[in-house]
């Protein structure tokens, strides 16, 4: 039993955090929004260069063969900067599915390839405009469709750094890759959404703390008032008790049983709730500033909202926890129990 990250994991995550932090700054968000784009090709190239897109791919396919836990740490760092690029969707969910179904596919050999993914539960497809291919779910199969085989209708969304599309496609013209493990895809998506949400939540708190130290009212910093302190302390408590769940869920995803799935769904629920709570507390602490477009807290609120809706509703995830709770042994010796 050892619930600590390895030095390598911490270092790799730190590399990602530094890269993201250097390039995905408030100035950069503003520039992207002014230019009405949600994809920075230069940053994507750096992401590819650093090997982040290869992380989950098997070594046999030229990947790094690392684990969902390693990727979750990167996803958390991506959340902390509200990363616009589809690192999580492509390298965390779609590419591993493609590699499992068609290990020799040309797209699997290209670490820069962007693959979008469309499970039946999502009404729209994220990042379809920049994707080199899309994995579509139908009758449990995965179909690979190329940009010239689909019609994309933009679906306007609240998150200015996220692009969604309704996709029209013809299964007869697409490549049927056969039955796919959509549950694994959903589990990965849920864990990485949770990890991003942790990053979003912490950034929202950090932004508010910085503001509250600086902003003076009635002759002292607003951060010295109990009301402000307690808003932010409560948000931090939510983060502290979501984080170990997310880490455990990521570490146990390979277990592929109802215990792991319940933990994954638990992680998704509480991490997105923490992000919503932290973002709203942050807006409140920022006062009117927090309600303005200029101050970037809204980006974190909006991304949290997006992550809470896709890849299974909250009711779906709560039901998975309920199934585990009501049909399997519970109690203090069951925390790390496995399916018999």
């Amino acid at each position, binding site marked *: 039993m050892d619930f600590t990250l390895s030095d390598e994991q911490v270092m790799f995550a730190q590399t990602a955090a530094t890269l993201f932090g250097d390039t995905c700054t408030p100035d950069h968000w503003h520039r992207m929004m002014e230019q009405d784009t949600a994809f920075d090709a230069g940053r994507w190239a750096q992401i590819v260069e650093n090997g982040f897109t290869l992380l989950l791919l098997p070594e046999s396919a030229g990947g790094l063969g690392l684990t969902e836990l390693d990727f979750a740490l990167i996803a958390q760092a991506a959340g902390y900067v509200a990363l616009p690029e589809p690192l999580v969707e492509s390298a965390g969910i779609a590419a591993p599915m493609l590699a499992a179904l068609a290990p020799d596919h040309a797209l699997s050999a290209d670490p820069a390839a962007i693959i979008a993914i469309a499970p039946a539960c999502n009404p729209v497809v994220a990042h379809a405009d920049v994707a080199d291919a899309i994995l579509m779910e139908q009758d449990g199969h995965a179909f690979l469709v190329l940009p010239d085989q689909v019609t994309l209708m933009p679906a306007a969304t*609240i998150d200015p750094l996220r692009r969604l599309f309704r996709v029209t496609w013809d299964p007869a013209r697409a490549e049927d890759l056969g039955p796919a493990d959509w549950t694994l895809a959903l589990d990965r998506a849920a864990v990485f959404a949770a990890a991003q949400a942790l990053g979003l939540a912490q950034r929202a708190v950090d932004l508010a703390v910085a503001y509250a130290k600086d902003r003076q009212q009635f002759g002292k910093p607003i951060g010295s008032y109990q*009301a402000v302190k307690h808003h932010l302390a409560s948000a931090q408590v939510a983060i502290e008790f979501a984080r170990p769940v997310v880490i455990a869920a990521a570490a146990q995803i390979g277990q592929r049983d109802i215990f792991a799935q319940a933990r994954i769904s638990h992680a998704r629920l509480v991490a997105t709730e923490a992000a919503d709570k932290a973002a*709203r507390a942050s807006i409140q602490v920022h006062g009117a500033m927090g*309600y303005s*477009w200029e101050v970037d807290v809204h980006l974190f609120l909006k991304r949290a909202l997006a992550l809470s809706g*896709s890849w299974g509703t*909250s*009711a779906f995830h709560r039901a998975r926890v309920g199934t585990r709770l009501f049909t399997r042994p519970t109690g203090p010796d069951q925390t790390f129990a496995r399916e018999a």
Partner: protein
Amino acid sequence: MQLSYTPEQQAFRAEVRAWLEAHVPAHPLEHYDATRAGFEAHRAWEATLKSGDWGMVTWPKEYGGRGLDLIQWLIFEEEYYRAGAPGRVNQNGIFLLGPTLMEFGSDDQKARFLPPMASGEEIWAQAWSEPQAGSDLAGVRATARRDGDEYVLNGHKIWSSRAAFADWAFGLFREPGSERHKGMSLIFFPLDAPGVTRNPIRKINGHVGFAEIFLDDVRVPAFNRLGDEGEGWHICMATAGFERGLMLRSPARYQVAAAALADLWQARKDRADPALEADVVRAFMNAEAYALNIYQTASRLIAGAKIGPEASTNKIFWSEMDIHLNQTALAILGPEAELLPEPGGHDWLDDFIFSLAGPIYAGSNEIQRNIIAERMLGLPR
């Protein structure tokens, strides 16, 4: 206690309903804060209201109003929201400045400012906050230097609602060198006066919602000062009472929203989280409770009572119920919550975003809780 309407009140409701059915625009107007065209369309609607004598229904007749009592006002608002009539671009005039002018203005000031306010010919912005004076309004730094019969205004106002397109603004200015609550005056200035610069501020939904105003040696006649010199803080506190209190937030808007939420639930409950039904019922109860509270307050005011710090309880209640209501709607929408609505669809997302401003503006909920604790409950400052 008589919780039903008199025949006169019922007739009045029918009259309002008939007029609105005949006059409310068939298509929603563009938002008044979004573009000059939207703003002017709303000004035209104010003129239409005025033409039917529905502009300033609670104002006394002598000032261009209809002299309705508060129960009639509530009925009017119910019908107004029920009809989906346009938002009131004139809100700052109706609820904030108009009543303040009536209470503190000279006869000449009332004659000069109230009629064009009532007709919508002059639309007003408020200019309370400054970058360093939000919750702590006594931190205002903008100055009004007396120069003969004029004031020379300088400073930087922010979060001014309507200021992007409005004609006039009213705000607090201090005598140079004065401090905190002393030496402040409430002064009106035209937003097209030389020396005034206004920059729109975008809200987190991406739409313009406020402006900041820079004043650089803006000259206005001393006539534009409301009340005595240095009395600004006192008057402003009275105005803040109006703003927080009964008048600004009509219960009808929440009842319309709660009914829309119930419709959303009925339409989607087969695919939504069953646990959300309790929240839908809760949203309805909240809107009902708010309406009952306001009816009770209105009856007490008609009977001669004065509104006190309990106005702060209203602010907290409506702001929190609004967030809850919209969060429930987004939860029902599930995977579609992040999508903007189809044209003509209810924009729950925008309502949610707007609701997040509730606990912040018009005195943050933290300030309101302090007021309740100190002035209602008598806890020490």
